[in-house]
Each structure stands twice: as structure tokens, then as C-alpha cells.
């Protein structure tokens, strides 16, 4: 670093603890024979350091160490040498352990209680990737810091001896001791802990005990944890791993929807490297778009939302992509029942520039191509490149591209008549559906001062959906050919452009301040419908763009009020402009903990949230046809208020963690389709198809995790209620939300039988979802015809209440076994998975329409229950490798 040369002392736990035996005059009276008689002051001092165990500590920016000096005597003491090099009237020496601190007199003389800042990045030593959430604690003062999203930390301590303990999940604890004089940059590389690497227990925050952090309803999952869970078709799914946590519902069987604490699927802020992802599903919701090999970590927040997050009501899923190994090339390849994937990472310029690229594609269409005209496939691509210009500046580029595409083809041909009168006719119908997202993001980390870290993000993201139906017919006779075609297209898309500036300010070890601003331009085309047909003009509805502009500001401080009370207070302010309307929302956030004893704390939180986008979703399935729509003059933003109260308990030695949380959430301005309205009516204005209403959810969540010998896992239980009230639905009466599940149980276990054989199992149980069924049928008049009374023979169905019935409860056991083997060029793993082991027919939906015939006088109703995903075994092959390190 230019103009500010500092001595950085980094020691490992075993080798770098300094001996404290030599102090004071003993140190200064050591006799030396000069090995260098002419050289710079720095070189002279280095020669002394080589002969002794003395370390000189100085600020290179304040003392000119390049000055050339001559040492002509044959033998001298350290004292006499220093007197010769540093005149006593200008300099002074302070002895700390084996260190001699050189300081200039009358200039910046500090008292013993002066403070200085230690700052830097915590990285994974093997990969060079930054480590978020690392704990850095000075054992002497008890003060500490946590590395931020980019692995940066800043810890201001009293000058003097410090003894830093650096710890991160799955790595060896590092201890660094030195004498702190001035601000010092200290980058720490964490070595993997072979014992801990195998598997780690899910945790609220493993490094800071859960009872000592203000986070509530927050759970971090690592890539290892996600990949260890049994998965449908062996395709590991980030979202499905989240569904195993208390307070999180999955929607219908096998889907990758998220319903958090009674909220809807649109109320989750799903961030990939900080950019919201609108569509999270491949395969019509049965797989998520996130390739687990490209994901570094996942954080789920269900309550106590820190002020830096905003824009959704019910949860934040904050995912970071892998940065790419900065030390050596490596990669992973997978082949599963559902898709195949490959991830490559490595340095472009060692320790400066690295990349990660991951690609995945389903291949059922390739296998089935010769059997059918129909096809379906999805693919996704993740790319990340980062470059470190200096310790002060680093730039990241991230990109995601994903698409799904399906096609159905039908054709018919026939001949009418004979000989010259024969007419040959044929028809072809092709239906296509295609949707996908793209995200590009550039981030610039800049260290303004050791206490002030900034990040500037520029992002561009798109989501688009298109469905097309093509019909072609042709009739060929001897004298004439008649053709007819019709092409019906519907599409929707969203384009977001965002600029965001975030700051992390560390004024004091007891305060960690975050603040930032953001401006977003959203462009919506919610529902474009087009018709192109022979012999009629082209028609296009709703092709206009809707532009909205959103600004956000946030400020939060996580601070220690007293030895027993820690608080995180903040505010998120947001403003949205659309057409002639604008909405402003000031959202206070607070989370406070009281440490009852060293293992147990009481926590409480308050969060207000606002959401400027709605999702028009059909009630049965999560399909890409779900429309993201902005707030408008008619449709105001969704809002929520959530209160939480809970206990957090941990016994670090036994690996036990327990949280018990209660929550109460009020939601306003929710939208629902009007009775009878649905996504199929594409040519109607969406604003005319919806009702506005309220929601309320409350419940209790228990989460217990434990690591015990070769076993580890967790148990989650949720007791919850979630209701909705809409003036024009259910005659204004409250009704249960579709995913109002009273009881939800998750049991997750892993058994490490041997170092290379692992067994995993999940068992899930959920109360049946709420459905609307007719209980009775009856006759009723259909109207008035003048003076005539007329009865209509068609009976009506009486739906006593919206969502008044329950489907059967759902439960399922999934298991998997992993067999790992070291190979010459890497490590291969066979993963055998059985989804739904005991073949439970979990209900997905119940068809309540007449299933036989309508005879004109009465309905012949039957309830037909559909189940997906019966027992499904699969095998996944996985191969990971690392190229040998080059010199």
C-alpha cells in the first residue's frame, strides 16, 4: 500500500504465539555483530531481526526507513544501534514483549488508551474465496467483529497487545497475536478443518452463538448441507432444502414454491448476489433455477428483517454465488435423473482474478426425441468473475441465464371422397411455452477508510414468458388448395435496472452500522396478447410498457446496549412512482435480545415491510403464467407488520441448539383473483380480475439441531394459522389461506457411517391444505322474465366457505446414501436416492367438477384426487476434481 507502509504480522495458532520471556533492557542490551555495515535503515533493522527474536514495529509512512546509513562499529548493543539510527530527541522506543515499537516524538504521540483499527478480509485459504460471517474476537478485550457479505471486517481496539481469535464454520480456528500501534490491515486465510468438513449442523449462526445475535427467524444453510439432502430425481435443490425448515411450506407436493409464515409465493425476496429473482422455477415449479454447485451459501430470514432488506413481506432468501477458486483450478460434474451439470472454477491471475462458471441442462428431451414429437427442456448458466485491484478495491461480475422450453405437436390427416373428388385434408397444431430469466451484475467494493466499506452495484435483470399456439389446416382437392392458419401468442416480461450503494461503517466494536441507497427502474409488460390469423388483421392487446421507479434508503445499527442487551435498530424507507401515483413507505425495524444467562437469551423483534409488486397466481399451481404486476393507481402496495418473540438456547459443547419463536403477522392490500377469474382469461385487464384484502398469520416454531457423534440433524415443528379476508370473497368472511397448515413437522438426519459413506433421511409431515368443495347442491331461479317465473333445471352447488375443507395430510420419507471414493484425478460420489420411500399418495389437488356426464337435469359429481410423485428411486453420479497446484 502506497505511502502507508505497515508491518503486518500474521501468525498461525501453533507457530506464531510470541514468547514473552525477553523484555525491557534485556532486549535492548543484546550484543550484536553487524552483518551489514551499509544499507537502508530498514535493511539494518531486518539484519537485527534475523540475528535475534526481536521484531521492530513502526509506521513506514511516518518514519523514513529508506535512508541509507553506515554502521562502522564492529560490535554494538541493540540500544546503541537504535540510539545511532534514531536520535533520542526525535524518536522513542516502546517495548512490548519481543517487539520494539519505534515512534517519532512530538508527533502523533499516543497514550496507552489510544485506539487503532485492525481491518481486512477473511478468506478460505484453499480457494481464496471471501468468507462471510467469520467471527474475529480479541480475547484480551473481549471485543469482536463479524466479517460482512464480502468477507471484510473492521475491529477498533485499544493499542497494545492483541490476541485475535478468528473462527469460521468448518475451518480451523486461527489465533493471531501482535502489538497494535496503528491501523493495521490483517487478511486471514482460513484452513479447512478436516474433521468439521464432512457435514455441519444447520445453525442460526454457528460462530456467534445463537443466543448472542439479534437475528431471529434466520437460518443459514451451506452448500454442503443443501447437497446432503435427498432430492427428487437426485437433482439437488436449494429451495427444497429451505422447505425443510420450520415456518416454511412447500405448496403442492414436489413443488419448489415457498410459503413462509402464512405468506404467499410472491412475498419472498429471493436474491442471487443481491439481485431479486422473479421466477425461481424450472420444470413448472418442480425444480428451482438455482444450481447448487454454483451457490456458496443461503440465508433465510423469516422475521426480524434487518433494515437493509425491503420489497417483500414474508421472507428474504439471500443467496451468494461462488466466487471461484483464486488458488487452483477445479470443478464438479453431476449426472442425475433429471439433468446434468458441470461447474468449473479457478484463477485467471493467481490471487488476483478468479472465475466460476456452471452450466446445467435437462436431457429428457434428448433421450425421448426419437419417440415423440413433443419436447421439454431447461437449462441454466451461472458465471462469476472477480478481480482484486488492491486491498482497497475489488470488482465482481456475476451473471445468470436460465430458460425453460416446452413444445407439444399434434397432427392429423384424412381423405374424403374418391378419385377426382377426393379431398386431402390435414391439420397441425403446435403449442409452445417458453420462459426464462437473465441477470447481470457488476459490484465494486471500495475501502474508503478502515472503518468505512462501500459497495456499488449495478444490475440488469429480465424475466420473460411466452406461450404460443399455432394452428394450420390445409385442404387439397384436384382443383383447389385451401389453407388457414391461426397463431395465438401471449407473453409477459419484466426488465429491472438498478443502482445501489451500500456502506458498512464500523465506528466502534459495539456498533456495526449499515446504510445505503438504491434506485430501481422496473419495466413491466404484464399480459400481452396477440392473434395472427389468415384473412383477418393482426390483433394485439395490452402491449404497453408500465414503467415504475423505486427508491430505497436504509440505515441500521447493530449495537451492544449493555453487557446483557444487544439491539439492532433500523429503518427502511421506500418510494415507488407509477404513472400519476406515488407511494411512500417508512418501515421501522427493531430486534432486541436480552441475555438471560450465557446459554439462553430472550429475543423480540418488530418489522414493517412493504411490497411494490404483486403476483397474480392461479390458486392451484405455481406456473410461469403467474403474472408479476406492479402497483398501480388502483392497486396499492402490499404491507405487513410482524412481531416475534422467542428464546434461543445453545450448548456449544454438546452441539445442541434450540430456538422457540412465536410470531404474529398482519398483511394488507393482498390480491386474489375474483371468484371465477383466472389466468386463462388473458385478454382481460388484470386489474379487473382481482380483489384486495387482508391477511393474518400467527404461530409457533420450534427448531432443535444437534450434532452427536456420527449423527447430526434437526427437528422442526410449526404450529400455525393463516387467514385471509376479502370483502368480495366468501361474502366478506375470513377464510383459511390455501396453505394454512396447522401442523408441520420436519425431521432431518444424517449418519456418517464411515468417512466415505453417508446416509441421509428426511421425513416431513404437513396438515392437509385447505380446499373449496361443494357440500350440497340445490335448485334456484336464474332470473326474472317479465311476469313469468322460470326455474332453471341446472342445480347450483353450495360452497359453504372458501377453503372450508381439508385435503388429507401429507407425509413422506426420503432417503439417500452417498458413497465417496478418492480417485487418481479427483473424487467420485455415487448418490442413491429414494424419494417417497413408502409410496405415500399425497394429494395434490382434488377435481370437483362433474366427472361423468351432465345429463341436463343434474350434476353427477365425483371428487377425483390427484397425486404426483409416487416412490421415485434415482442415482446420481458426481465427480469433483482439482488441478495440481503449479509453482
Amino acid at each position, binding site marked *: 500500500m502506497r505511502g502507508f507502509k505497515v508491518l503486518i504480522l500474521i501468525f498461525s495458532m501453533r507457530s506464531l504465539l510470541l514468547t514473552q520471556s525477553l523484555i525491557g533492557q534485556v532486549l535492548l542490551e543484546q550484543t550484536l555483530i553487524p552483518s551489514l555495515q551499509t544499507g537502508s535503515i530498514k535493511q539494518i533493522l531486518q539484519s537485527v531481526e534475523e540475528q535475534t527474536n526481536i521484531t521492530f514495529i513502526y509506521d513506514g509512512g511516518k518514519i523514513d526507513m529508506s535512508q541509507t546509513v553506515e554502521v562502522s562499529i564492529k560490535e554494538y548493543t541493540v540500544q546503541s544501534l537504535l540510539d545511532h539510527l534514531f536520535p533520542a530527541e526525535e524518536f522513542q522506543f516502546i517495548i512490548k514483549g519481543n517487539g520494539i515499537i519505534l515512534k517519532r516524538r512530538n508527533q502523533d504521540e499516543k497514550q496507552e488508551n489510544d485506539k487503532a483499527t485492525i481491518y481486512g478480509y477473511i478468506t478460505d485459504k484453499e480457494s481464496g474465496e471471501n468468507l462471510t460471517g467469520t467471527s474475529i474476537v480479541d480475547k484480551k478485550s473481549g471485543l469482536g467483529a463479524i466479517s460482512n457479505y464480502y468477507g471484510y471486517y473492521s475491529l477498533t481496539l485499544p493499542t497494545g497487545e492483541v490476541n485475535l481469535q478468528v473462527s469460521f464454520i468448518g475451518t480451523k480456528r486461527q489465533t493471531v497475536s501482535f502489538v497494535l500501534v496503528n491501523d493495521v490491515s490483517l487478511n486471514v486465510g482460513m484452513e479447512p478443518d478436516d474433521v468439521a468438513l464432512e457435514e455441519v449442523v444447520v445453525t442460526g449462526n454457528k460462530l456467534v452463538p445463537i443466543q448472542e445475535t439479534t437475528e431471529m427467524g434466520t437460518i443459514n444453510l451451506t452448500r454442503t448441507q443443501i447437497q446432503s439432502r435427498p432430492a427428487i430425481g437426485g437433482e439437488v435443490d436449494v429451495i427444497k432444502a429451505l422447505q425443510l425448515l420450520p415456518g416454511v411450506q412447500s405448496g403442492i407436493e414436489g413443488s419448489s414454491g415457498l410459503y413462509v409464515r402464512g405468506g404467499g409465493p410472491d412475498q419472498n425476496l429471493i436474491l442471487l448476489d443481491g439481485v431479486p429473482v422473479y421466477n425461481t422455477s424450472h420444470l413448472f415449479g418442480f425444480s428451482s433455477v438455482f444450481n447448487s454447485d454454483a451457490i456458496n451459501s443461503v440465508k433465510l430470514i423469516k422475521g426480524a428483517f434487518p433494515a437493509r432488506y425491503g420489497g417483500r413481506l414474508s421472507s428474504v432468501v439471500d443467496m451468494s454465488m461462488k466466487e471461484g477458486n483464486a488458488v487452483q483450478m477445479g470443478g464438479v460434474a453431476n449426472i442425475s435423473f433429471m439433468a446434468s451439470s458441470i461447474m468449473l472454477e479457478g484463477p485467471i491471475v493467481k490471487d488476483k482474478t478468479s472465475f466460476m462458471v456452471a452450466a446445467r441442462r435437462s436431457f429428457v428431451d434428448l433421450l425421448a426425441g426419437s419417440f415423440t414429437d413433443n419436447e421439454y427442456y431447461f437449462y441454466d448458466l451461472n458465471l462469476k468473475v472477480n478481480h482484486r485491484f488492491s486491498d482497497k478495491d475489488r470488482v465482481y461480475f456475476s451473471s445468470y441465464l436460465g430458460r425453460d422450453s416446452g413444445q*407439444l405437436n399434434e397432427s392429423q390427416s384424412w381423405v374424403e371422397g374418391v378419385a377426382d373428388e377426393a379431398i386431402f385434408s390435414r391439420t397441425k397444431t403446435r403449442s409452445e411455452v417458453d420462459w426464462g430469466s437473465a441477470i447481470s451484475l457488476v459490484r465494486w467494493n471500495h475501502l474508503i477508510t478502515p472503518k468505512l466499506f462501500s459497495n456499488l452495484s449495478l444490475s440488469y435483470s429480465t424475466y420473460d414468458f411466452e406461450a404460443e399456439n399455432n394452428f394450420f389446416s390445409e385442404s387439397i382437392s384436384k382443383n383447389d388448395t385451401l389453407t388457414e392458419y391461426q397463431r395465438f401468442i401471449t407473453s409477459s416480461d419484466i426488465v429491472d435496472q438498478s443502482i445501489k450503494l451500500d456502506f458498512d461503517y464500523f465506528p466502534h466494536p459495539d456498533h456495526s452500522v449499515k446504510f445505503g441507497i438504491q434506485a430501481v427502474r422496473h419495466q413491466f409488460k404484464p399480459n400481452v396478447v396477440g392473434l395472427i390469423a389468415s384473412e383477418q388483421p393482426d390483433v394485439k392487446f395490452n402491449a404497453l410498457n408500465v414503467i415504475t421507479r423505486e427508491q430505497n434508503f436504509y440505515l441500521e445499527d447493530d449495537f451492544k446496549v449493555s453487557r446483557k442487551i444487544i439491539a439492532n435498530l433500523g429503518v427502511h424507507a421506500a418510494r415507488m412512482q407509477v404513472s400519476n401515483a406515488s407511494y411512500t413507505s417508512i418501515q421501522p425495524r427493531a430486534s432486541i435480545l436480552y441475555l438471560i444467562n450465557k446459554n439462553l437469551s430472550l429475543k423480540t423483534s418488530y418489522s414493517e415491510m412493504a411490497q411494490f409488486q404483486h403476483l397474480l397466481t392461479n390458486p392451484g399451481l405455481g406456473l410461469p403464467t403467474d403474472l408479476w404486476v406492479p402497483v398501480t393507481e388502483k392497486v396499492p402496495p402490499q404491507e405487513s407488520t410482524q412481531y416475534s418473540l422467542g428464546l434461543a438456547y445453545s450448548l456449544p459443547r454438546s452441539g445442541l441448539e434450540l430456538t422457540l419463536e412465536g410470531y404474529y403477522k398482519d398483511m394488507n392490500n393482498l390480491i386474489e383473483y375474483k*371468484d371465477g377469474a383466472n389466468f386463462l382469461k388473458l385478454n382481460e385487464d388484470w386489474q379487473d380480475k382481482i380483489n384486495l384484502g387482508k391477511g393474518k398469520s400467527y404461530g409457533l416454531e420450534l427448531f432443535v439441531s444437534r450434532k452427536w457423534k456420527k449423527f447430526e440433524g434437526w427437528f422442526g415443528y410449526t404450529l400455525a394459522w393463516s387467514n385471509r379476508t376479502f370483502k368480495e370473497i366468501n361474502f366478506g368472511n375470513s377464510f383459511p389461506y390455501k396453505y394454512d397448515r396447522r401442523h408441520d413437522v420436519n425431521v432431518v438426519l444424517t449418519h456418517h457411517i464411515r468417512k466415505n459413506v453417508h446416509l441421509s433421511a428426511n421425513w416431513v409431515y404437513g396438515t392437509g391444505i385447505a380446499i373449496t368443495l361443494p357440500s350440497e347442491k340445490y335448485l334456484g331461479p*336464474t332470473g326474472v322474465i317479465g311476469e313469468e317465473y322460470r326455474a332453471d333445471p341446472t342445480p347450483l352447488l353450495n360452497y359453504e366457505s372458501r377453503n372450508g375443507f381439508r385435503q388429507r395430510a401429507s407425509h413422506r420419507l426420503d432417503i439417500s446414501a452417498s458413497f465417496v471414493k478418492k480417485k487418481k484425478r479427483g473424487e467420485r460420489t455415487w448418490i442413491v436416492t429414494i424419494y417417497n420411500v413408502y409410496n405415500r399418495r399425497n394429494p395434490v389437488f382434488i377435481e370437483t367438477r362433474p366427472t361423468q356426464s351432465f345429463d341436463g337435469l343434474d350434476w353427477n359429481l365425483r371428487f377425483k384426487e390427484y397425486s404426483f410423485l409416487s416412490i421415485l428411486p434415482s442415482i446420481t453420479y458426481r465427480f469433483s476434481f482439482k488441478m495440481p497446484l503449479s509453482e
Partner: protein
Amino acid sequence: MKRIVTIVLAIVMCSCHENLVDLDIEKSAPKLVIGGLINSDSSVIIKVTKTVHALQTDAEYGVKDATVLLYENETLKTQLFYDPQITDSEVDDVYRSEDGFTPSSGNVYTLRVNAEGYREVNASTRIPEKIPIADFQASSTPVQVGEFLNGVNAQMTFQDAPNETNFYSIVIREEYKVYNEYDEFGEPIESKGFVTETLSKALIPRFDDKIEFDGKSNFQFNVLYLSDIAFNGQLYTFKFLMHAPNSGGKLTVFLNHITKEHYQYGTTSQLQQLESTENPFSQPVQVYTNIENGLGIFSGYGASSLVREVP
């Protein structure tokens, strides 16, 4: 768009299973169902039926032994007795007043119905004032609507009452000549046929009705409901589409001034029938009722009519 759904279903087909189930739907006690639309021009007729379990087949709906009492401004005015209207295909289980009681506008009417084995049901209504039809016109130029039907544009003009929310139903009955029989000389015998025209507008029930025909809807029902939110207090011309009448016939156009309860019942019952055959993913429609402890509708209306010859 239904093809999208088909694609979804095809994908999950490999692991899909369907099962006919008897869900645990409690067999609740049957309720009385009232069909009672009364006006000041005709004697009261009330239809009394019952609910049956949703899965029951060959259901009998009629209730023959009910006690049906009608009150005017809380004073008992008449009792109605079972007097079924029997046609070739069905029995209409209606109750009539023996004295031919006819309600009048401005009063509040309360209906109380008791029958053994059922909870007593009751409902109250008033008879709205008649709203005269100022004009009615139907074009003779047919337009294509949907895939099958030919229609014609029509319009009806009337003066809406100001400072109150009013609801209307429109019905058009066509009387036309039919020649199905022949006399002894082989000449066709002219007789009359009647049909109630199907009408069209936006069909989703809402109180902010789009009242102009917008070309999006198909012919569906023969009663058309609308509210006056967009034209409160105005002399209003309502444009709509109707099934093309036969030439040489006669159209009788009815404008019924109805209550909000009737409007809600009518729109929701129409929508339920429409949606029940269209899309399995739409939420079922709950039909409104103003019958306490029961189902159906008891409501007054003021009927106006106009007759037009079809050229």
C-alpha cells in the same frame, strides 16, 4: 393456454396418480331453498326446494309440505300453498297464494318458511320502483361473435334514478312464427314460438361493470345484469349484443329494476355455471343468498317492458 396445462400434466404423468375418493364431507342437515322473485304486477309465487348432498345422484329437490307465510311490513298478509306447475319434463315445486295476493311497491315483504325436518328460513325484501324503457333498438346487421353464433348489436335507453345505487336485469323474449303443422290442404299452419334471447356483456360480477360491449365476451345467458355505478342518475343508453332474432317476429324487452341482493345472486349463479365447465384451476364461485338459514333468493323487482316488431 389450456395447452400449457396439458404440458404440465404430461410432465408429471410419469409419476402421476389419480384416485376417486369419498372425502369426509359431513352430511349436513338439508336446508330449505327459496326461489322467490316478486313484483307488483303479478301474484306471488314462491318455489320451495331443499338441498341435497353434493354427491347424491337422482336427487329429489321438492318440498311439498312447507308452511309459507308472507308478511307485509311485519303484518301477515297471506299464506302460500303447494301448487306444482307440471310440465312434460319436470315438476316445478311452487307455492301460490290462494287469494292471488299481489305485492305493491314501497313496502317491505318478509317471507317465513317452515317445514318439518328443516330450520325455519326467512328473508325480507322491498319492491323497487319500475324504471320505464325510453327506447330500445336492435340492428338488423348481424355480427359474428365467438365461433358459432351470429348476433346483432342492440341498445336500450332508460333514466336511472339519481343518488342511489340501482341494479337491473335485462331480458328479451322473442315471439316468432313457426310452421310445423299443415292443414288439410297442405298449407302450413302458423303457430307461435317463444325463445329468450341470449345476451352478452362482460360476465365477471363486479360493481364497476364495463357496460359497453367490448367484443371479448361470448353469448352465455338469457338474463343480463348490470349496476348503475358508471351512469348513476343519467339518461343512459346501454349497448349490448344479443342473439339475432328471426324476421317477422316480435321482441318483448324487459327492464327489471332489481335489488342488490338479486344482482349478487344472479351474477354469482351465472358465473358458477360458466366457470364450472371452463377451467379446473379457477376458484369455485360461491353463490350469494339472502335467505337466513337457507339458500336461494327472495327479492322484489319492478318490471317494465316494451314490444318491438322484428322487420
